[in-house]
Structure formats: C-alpha cells, structure tokens
C-alpha cells in the first residue's frame, strides 16, 4: 500500500526530472549546440535576441524559438494520415522522457527514519527497461515518416528504423560485460557498487564504453550517424512535414535522448553521483556536525550536482563529436554496426567472461 508521503516523494522526483529535462536541458542544449559550434568554428554564434537590450550571450534565442514555433501554423499535408501524423511526435517524446525514470540521479539518503532513494522507479531490471523503452522511440520516428505522405520523410523513417534496430542489438550487447562485472541489472545497485573509484565502469570496461558511445550516438540519429535526417540528402528526414509544436516535440525528444544516453553513460561507466575517492558515507560524515538530516541534505545536493556536471561533460563530448565528424554513408553505418561493433562486443563479453573465470577481473 502506497502512503501519501511516498506519493509526494515520487511526484517531487518526477517533477524534478521533467523540469530538468524539458525546462532546463532541452532549451539550454539548443543554445549549447549553436554557441559551441560557433565558437569552435571561429564564429560568434546567435546573440541577437534581446529583452530590453540585454542579450545574455544568446540564451534568449531558446525563448525566441519557442515563441516563434508556438505561433507557427500546425500543418498536416494533403494525403497524410491525420491520426498517425499527430500521434507520431507524442510516441517519439514519451519514451525519451520515460527512460529517465530508472536512472538514479543520486544515492540513498536517510531523513529521520525515512530513506529517500533518488530514483523514480527502483527496478530490478533497470538496464533492460531502458533498452526496452528507448527502442519504442523507433515507432514514433517510423510512423512520422510513414504518415507524412512524403518520399523524403518515408526514406528517412525507413533509414531511421533500420539503423535504430541494428544498433539496438549491439548497444544491448556492449553492456552485457558490464552487467556480468557488477552482477546486477539494477541501476541503483550498479551505482552503489561504483562507490570505490577503482570499481568504476570506465576503468575496467573502457572498450565497452567506446562501443557503447558509438551505438548511443547512432541510436540518437546524430552526426556522424545522421543518415535518417541527412539535410543534404533527405531535406530533414522523417520530420520534414512537421511544423510548429509537433516539430518542437521531435526536437525536444532528440535533445532528451542525448541527455538520457549521457545519463546512462554516467551511471554505467562514470560512477553516477559518486565523487572519485570519496564514498557516500564519508561525504555525509564530513557534514555530521550539522546534524544527521542536514548532513544528508547537503550530501544529496552535492550528489545531484556531481551527477549533473558529469552529465554535462558527457553531453559536451557528444556535441564535440557532432561538430567534428562528417556523416557516414548509409552502407558504412550498417557495416560498422553489424560487421564491426557487434563482433567486437561479443569478443568483449568473451574477454570479460574469461577474466572473471580466471579471477583476473575481480568480482564485486
């Protein structure tokens, strides 16, 4: 039986995540994408939108975009399937946000006799849940391409579904070695086991991290794997026929997927909310003079901040990749997925298995 306090706690966590994703990360990432690309290409970037003469380094362009897109006509092309055309952006956006529900953005803290675990749903099969939910996003993309009654959109949708299905398999397999290492599918447990710096995923599984990041970028359909929305080939790919708020939904979904994938990287490879060499209990001990509750609160704030900063670093890495690499050809994408990353991930599972059998890799 769920109590009122439990309900409030869950609602607060959901509110925090939704505000963080939709309210903070999505608009700020549009700014980052514009500004970072500009700065690394020796340009200045968008900075003309102002309120009473204050430009705030171009941050207001996100607001200007939002206002523009809200007042745009919501256009459905002739011959398009109206129901599916309307449903597709929702189907793309919901899995993107939903996948965040099992990602722990902090540790476990005690307030009085109440334990607060900073994850919305502490599932035993969290890793599986994330992969199951992110694969649902393919439907939104494909239905968008299918229902638009547009050849470019259809081609984009086909490419997207083929690419996402192929990389889905590989992405799951790259994580198997890690799951064997931590002997758990629960995100919370995996983070808890990375309490010690030498047990971080990146230390033991850096080849898996490279493979995982490649798959993750392919899964997000971003450069160098942006064949589904290749501007020079397919206009805008699967969302060619979308305008106004439906376009915003696709666009928000893309940015939230980046955040989700980065969060997954942080949780699986970079120790979640843990500061290197400082365990959670030690952190709470540092502030114990303030009283148990406040010490826990401070540790919680620090944990969430560390998590978000790690997230920001991984997102920055992904953005750099986006502005450095040229696009792969479509057959190269398929070849990379099936002929290179898939065998490599299988080899890595074998290596980890062998290492654990011979006790070269410790069991934790």
């Amino acid at each position: 039986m769920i109590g009122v306090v439990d309900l409030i706690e869950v609602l607060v966590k959901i509110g925090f995540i939704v505000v963080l994703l939709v309210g903070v990360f999505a608009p700020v990432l549009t700014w980052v994408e514009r500004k970072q690309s500009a700065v690394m290409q020796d340009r200045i970037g968008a900075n003309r939108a102002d309120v009473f003469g204050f430009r705030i380094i171009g941050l207001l362009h996100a607001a200007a975009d939002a206002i523009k897109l809200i007042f745009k006509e919501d256009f459905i092309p002739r011959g398009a399937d109206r129901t599916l055309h309307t449903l597709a952006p929702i189907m793309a956006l919901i899995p993107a946000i939903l996948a965040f529900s099992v990602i722990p953005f902090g540790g476990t803290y005690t307030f009085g006799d109440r334990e607060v675990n900073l994850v919305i749903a502490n599932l035993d099969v969290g890793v599986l849940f994330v992969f199951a939910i992110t694969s649902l996003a393919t439907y939104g993309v494909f239905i968008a391409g299918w229902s638009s009654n547009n050849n470019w959109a259809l081609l984009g949708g086909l490419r997207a579904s083929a690419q996402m299905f192929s990389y889905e398999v590989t992405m799951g397999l790259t994580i198997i070695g890690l799951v064997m290492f931590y002997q758990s599918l629960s995100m919370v447990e995996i983070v808890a086991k990375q309490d010690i710096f030498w047990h971080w995923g990146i230390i033991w599984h850096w080849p898996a991290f490279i493979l995982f990041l490649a798959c993750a970028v392919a899964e997000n359909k971003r450069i160098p794997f942006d064949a589904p929305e290749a501007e020079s080939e397919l206009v805008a790919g699967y969302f060619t026929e979308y305008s106004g708020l439906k376009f915003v939904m696709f666009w928000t979904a893309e940015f939230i997927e980046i955040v989700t994938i980065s969060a997954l990287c942080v949780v699986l490879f970079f120790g979640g909310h843990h500061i290197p060499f400082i365990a959670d209990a030690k952190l709470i001990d540092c502030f114990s003079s303030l009283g148990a509750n406040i010490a826990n609160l401070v540790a919680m704030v620090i944990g969430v901040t560390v998590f978000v900063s790690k997230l920001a670093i991984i997102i920055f890495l992904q953005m750099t990749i986006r502005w450095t690499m040229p696009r792969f050809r479509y057959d190269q994408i398929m070849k990379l997925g099936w002929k290179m990353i898939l065998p490599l991930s299988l080899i890595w599972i074998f290596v980890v298995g062998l290492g654990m059998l011979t006790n070269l890799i410790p069991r934790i």
Partner: protein
Amino acid sequence: MAITVKKVDRNVDMTLWERMYIPEMICGMLITWRHFFLNFVGLFLEEVGGKHYRRIATVYYPEEMPIVPVAYRGRPVLVRSKNGIEKCVACGLCEAACPPNCISIIGGERPNGDRYPDSYVLDGSRCIFCGFCEEVCPKEAIVMSHDWKNLCEYNRSKMVYTKKELLYPERNLQKRFDVLRDKYFSAYRYRQSPNLKTEPKE
C-alpha cells in the same frame, strides 16, 4: 608567373592507424577543442565589453564595419581634382567599354577649349562593378571607390547617379590610384627597366 601545378595522388591507402578511426577521430576532436577553448575565454570577456581576444572572423555588421582590401571594386566615382573640377574629358571610352551600357555622357566645352562632361549619368542598377571603365580611362578620371554602403534602393530610379553624386575628391582615392598604376603599368615599367636582358611576353 607560371602557374605551378602540384599533383595530388588521391588514391592513397590509409594506414592501419588511420583505419582504426578512433585515434584519428580523437585528433580531430583535439583540433575543435583547441579552437573552442582559445575562443571560449575571449567570448565571455567580449560579452562584458572587453577587447578582441579571439581569432574570430565574424564582423558585427551594423556596429562594426568590415575593412575592404585596396583592390576592392566598389561604386564607380568621378575624380574631382584639387582645383575643384572633374578630370573627365568626355572622350566616351568608358561609355563604349561598359558591358551593360550603364554610362551615358553628354560632352561640353569650356571657354578655354577644355572638354568636360556636361552630363555624366551612371545607372547604378545596371552597373556590374567590372572595372572596365577605370581600366580604359586615359585620364584616371573614373575609378572604382571603396564605397559599398547604401548601394541598394527599393526603387531603380533612385539608383541613377548623376555627375553631382558621382564626384569624389581626389585625395581620398590615392590608395586606389597606386593599385591601378601597379596593376596596369607594371608590365610597362618592367620593360623599361635597364637591368633586364630578356623581354617579358605580353
């Protein structure tokens, strides 16, 4: 100067290191990161009103003006010499050389016998900024200035420049004269040089 041709073999096989992709990718990312961090500090300093700390090519146009190169061909102007009258003798060569026929001259004669353009009309909406008029002019009377602002209008009739609008003081065009003389008479000067043994081909 003869054009040097460098042959580039484009069918080079990549080495194993390059085919591994990831090290080369990291090298590429290091380049973008270097540019990013060099410009990043200066960006924020500039937003709060600092000087130029960055290597940024962007010009904030209405606030900042781009510096045009000396050989830039802007709006064609008539040269007004130091005594206040135009150098033009209304020979009509520019009128004949002009590819889009945008120049029309009506000549006149002063009491002392000097010829001058009674009316000199240049249709700015037809001008293609080719610079043939300045090349053909025997008196250096029409040159391409560095004037590039406010050349556009909503109405074509406003773009027809008369003599009054075309006149431009000579002292502001000295750099352009240097460029012109260098460009069109360097071959001539080269031939006159006593140190040369072989004649350059035209």
